[in-house]
C-alpha cells in the first residue's frame, strides 16, 4: 500500500468513528496547531546545518531563472567539486526583480527563512543590511580581495563602511549607435557630449530619414530613475553627499542642467515624445527596428541584434560607446548587476558553506565561463584584459569603457522610497509637467525627508 492510500484509509476510519461534531472539533484544533507549527517552522536557522544524504552540508541558494543554462552548470560543477562537503540547492525565484525582492523580504520578516545564499540585485544590500538580515562580510572579504573587483559594484555593496555583498556579474548603461548611418553622414566618431549627440542625431535623421534620433528609458519606473541619474551625473550633479550620505545635495545647478538636457531631447525633436513612457523594451524595439540612430540601454541588447527574428539591423551596423557627458564633465554609467549576499540568520557552518560557493562562483575561471557562454559581464578587473573574452564577447570589448565607469544608485536602506520619488519627478520633468528646477527642488526636500526619517 502506498503512503497516500494508507493515509486516506486511516483518515476515513477516523472520520467514521469520530462523528461529525468531534471531527470538526479536532479539525479546528489541528488547524490552530498547524498555524502554530507554521510560525515555529518559519524561525529557521536555529540549530545546526542541514545535511544531504551523503553527509555534506546542504544549503539553499536563491536566484531567478537563467535562460542561458550557465547557472545550472555552475551549481553542478560546485556540487561535484565539493561532493561530500557541501551541496548547493538552487531555489528558482521570480524573474521580476520586485517580486523576487518581495519573496525574500517576506521570508526575512518571518524570521530568516531557509535560504542561505542570495543572488541579489545591486540596489538591495543597504536595506537588507540595515535590518540585520544579511551578514557583514568585511572579514571574509578583505580590502586586498575587494581591490580585484570593479569599483562601482564594490561601492554599491558597501553600507556604513562595511561590505555586505560580493559582485557576481555587472551591468552598465551604454550608448548604442548606428555605425553605418554615422559614416554615411560623415561622422567617424561617436558623440562625446550631449550637445554633439543632439546635433549628430538631427543631421542623421535628416540625411537618412530615420524616425528617431535618440531613444532611452523615460518612463515612471526604476529604469527611468537610472537614466535620469545618468543625466545628472554626467553634468556633475550628485544625489547624496559622497562624504556624508545623510545629506541630500541634489539641489544644484548641475542636476538642473542634467534634467534640462533630458527634457531638451524631446523639445528639440531628437527623441520621440513617447519616450516618456519607454522602458527597456520599447527602446530596443525602436532601435532594432532600425528606427533610431542612438539608444541608451543595457548590454543585453547586443545579443538580440544577431537574432533576425528580433532585429532588422545586423550586429555589424551597431557600435557601442560610453554615454556622452556635458562639456568638461566625465562620462558616468548607471550600475546594474547582481551580487551574492549571505543570510545572517543561518548557523555558522551553513554560512561557511555559502561562502565557499561565493568564492567558487566569483573566481576568474567561473566568471569567464559565464561571460563566454552567457555574455554575463564579469566583475573582476583582470577579465577585462582577457583576450579570449574580448574576442568572443564583442559587447564586453565594445562596452568596456562604459563598464569601467559605472556608479551605483544612492546606497540607502530607504532606496525604494527614494526611487519612487525620483521616478515620479524625473518623469514629470521629462513630460514638461514641472520644470527641471521644480523637480529638483521637490526632490531635495522629499529625499531629505526620507533620509531623515530613516535616521
Amino acid at each position, binding site marked *: 500500500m502506498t503512503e497516500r492510500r494508507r493515509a486516506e484509509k486511516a483518515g476515513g476510519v477516523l472520520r467514521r468513528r469520530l462523528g461529525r461534531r468531534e471531527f470538526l472539533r479536532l479539525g479546528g484544533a489541528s488547524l490552530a496547531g498547524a498555524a502554530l507549527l507554521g510560525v515555529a517552522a518559519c524561525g529557521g536557522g536555529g540549530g545546526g546545518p542541514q545535511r544531504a544524504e551523503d553527509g555534506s552540508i546542504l544549503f539553499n541558494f536563491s536566484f531567478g531563472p537563467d535562460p542561458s543554462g550557465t547557472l545550472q552548470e555552475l551549481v553542478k560543477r560546485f556540487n561535484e567539486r565539493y561532493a561530500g562537503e557541501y551541496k548547493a540547492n538552487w531555489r528558482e525565484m521570480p524573474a521580476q526583480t520586485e517580486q523576487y525582492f518581495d519573496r525574500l523580504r517576506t521570508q526575512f520578516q518571518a524570521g530568516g527563512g531557509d535560504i542561505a545564499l542570495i543572488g541579489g540585485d545591486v540596489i538591495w544590500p543597504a536595506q537588507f543590511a540595515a535590518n540585520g538580515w544579511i551578514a557583514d562580510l568585511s572579514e571574509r572579504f578583505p580590502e586586498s580581495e575587494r581591490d580585484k573587483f570593479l569599483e562601482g559594484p564594490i561601492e554599491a555593496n558597501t553600507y556604513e563602511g562595511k561590505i555586505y555583498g560580493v559582485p557576481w556579474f555587472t551591468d552598465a548603461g551604454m550608448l548604442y549607435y548606428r555605425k553605418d548611418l554615422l559614416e554615411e553622414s560623415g561622422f567617424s566618431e561617436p558623440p562625446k557630449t550631449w550637445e554633439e549627440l543632439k546635433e549628430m542625431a538631427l543631421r542623421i535623421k535628416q540625411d537618412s530619414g530615420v524616425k528617431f534620433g535618440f531613444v532611452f528609458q523615460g518612463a515612471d519606473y526604476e529604469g527611468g530613475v537610472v537614466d535620469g541619474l545618468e543625466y545628472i551625473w554626467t553634468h556633475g550633479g550628485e544625489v547624496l553627499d559622497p562624504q556624508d550620505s545623510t545629506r541630500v545635495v541634489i539641489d544644484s545647478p548641475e542636476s538642473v542642467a542634467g534634467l534640462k538636457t533630458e527634457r531638451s531631447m524631446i523639445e528639440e525633436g531628437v527623441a520621440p515624445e513617447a519616450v516618456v513612457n519607454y522602458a527597456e523594451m520599447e527602446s530596443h524595439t525602436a532601435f532594432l527596428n532600425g528606427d533610431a540612430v542612438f539608444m541608451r540601454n543595457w548590454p543585453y541588447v547586443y545579443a538580440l541584434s544577431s537574432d533576425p527574428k528580433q532585429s532588422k539591423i545586423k550586429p555589424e551596423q551597431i557600435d557601442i560607446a560610453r554615454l556622452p557627458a556635458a562639456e568638461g564633465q566625465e562620462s558616468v554609467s548607471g550600475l546594474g548587476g547582481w551580487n551574492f549576499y549571505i543570510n545572517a540568520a543561518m548557523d555558522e557552518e551553513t554560512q561557511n558553506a555559502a561562502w565557499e560557493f561565493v568564492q567558487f562562483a566569483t573566481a576568474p575561471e567561473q566568471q569567464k565561463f559565464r561571460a563566454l557562454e552567457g555574455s554575463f559581464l564579469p566583475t573582476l578587473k583582470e577579465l577585462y584584459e582577457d583576450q579570449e573574452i574580448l574576442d568572443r564577447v564583442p559587447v564586453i570589448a565594445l562596452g568596456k569603457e562604459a563598464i569601467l565607469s559605472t556608479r551605483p544608485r544612492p546606497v540607502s536602506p530607504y532606496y525604494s522610497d527614494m526611487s519612487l520619488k525620483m521616478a515620479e519627478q524625473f518623469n514629470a520633468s521629462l513630460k514638461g509637467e514641472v520644470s527641471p528646477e521644480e523637480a529638483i527642488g521637490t526632490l531635495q526636500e522629499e529625499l531629505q525627508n526620507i533620509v531623515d526619517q*530613516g535616521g
Partner: protein
Amino acid sequence: MVLPALLIILVVAFFPVVSSIWLSLHQATVTNTGAFVGLENYVEMFQNDDFVEGLSNTVIFTVVSVGLEFVIGLAIALAINRAFRGRGLVRAAVLVPWAFPTVISAVMWRLMFQDQVGIINYVANALGIISQPILSDRTLLLIAAILVDVWKTTPFMALLLLAGLQVIPGDVYEAAKVDGANVLQRFFSITLPLLKPAILVAVLFRTLDAYRVYDLFWAMSNRELESLSTFVYKAVRVSQLLFAQGNAAAVFVFVTSFLIALLFIKGFGMQTSAGD
C-alpha cells in the same frame, strides 16, 4: 453546531481585518508594530498626494465606468432578451471580452494605445483627436482605462440584467398593452421596477469590483496610473517608510467598500435573501 464554523470564520476572516485596523493605529514599520499614534496615519494619508490622486482616480473610474456599463449592459440585455434565431450564439459571443483575464486584456489594449504599433493611437492621431501619445498623459490613460473596463465587464452586467429580465412574467406586459401603455411607459413602469433587485445586485457587484481596481490600471499604464489599491501595494510592499499609511489605506478601502455595500442594502432597499 454554529460555534466551530463561527470560530473558523472569525480566525480566517476577521483576525486579519482586526489586526490591520490595530496596526493602522500604530507607527508601524515592516518589522515592528511601533508606538500607538491613534488616527495620525489616517491624517497623514489624506495629506499624501499619491493617496489623494489614487482616491480621485478610483472614484472617477468607478462612477463613470459602472454608469456606462449599466446603460450599455441594460441595452444589450433588452436586445438579447427577445426571441430570435441564433440567440444562444449571440449571448455566448457577448461574453467573450469578459472571459479574458484582466491582465491579458489590459496588455492587449496597451499595445493598441502604444505609439509605435498602436492602431488606436494612429487613428486618433490621424483624425486629429489627440496630439500627444495616449500613454504619456494621465487623463487620457484614465479615459482609456475606463473604456477598457467598459469593454470588458459590460457583458457581465448584461448577463446579470438578462437573468433579471427573464423572470419578469410576460402577461404583465400583455395586460399593460391591453391598457394602452406605450413602449416607454411599459419600460419605466414595469421593466425598471421589476428589474430593480437584479439592477442593484449587478451595480453593487460592479461598483465594488471597480472600486478595488488594481490589475487593469497597472498593466495598462505600466504602473503609472494610481488607484487606491495600487497605493496600498506601493506603500506596503515597495516603500519602507509608508508602511503605516499603507495599512491605514487598506483599512480605508475595506471600510468604504463595506459602507458602499451598506448603502445599497439599506439605502436602496436591496434584498439580501429571498426570505426578507
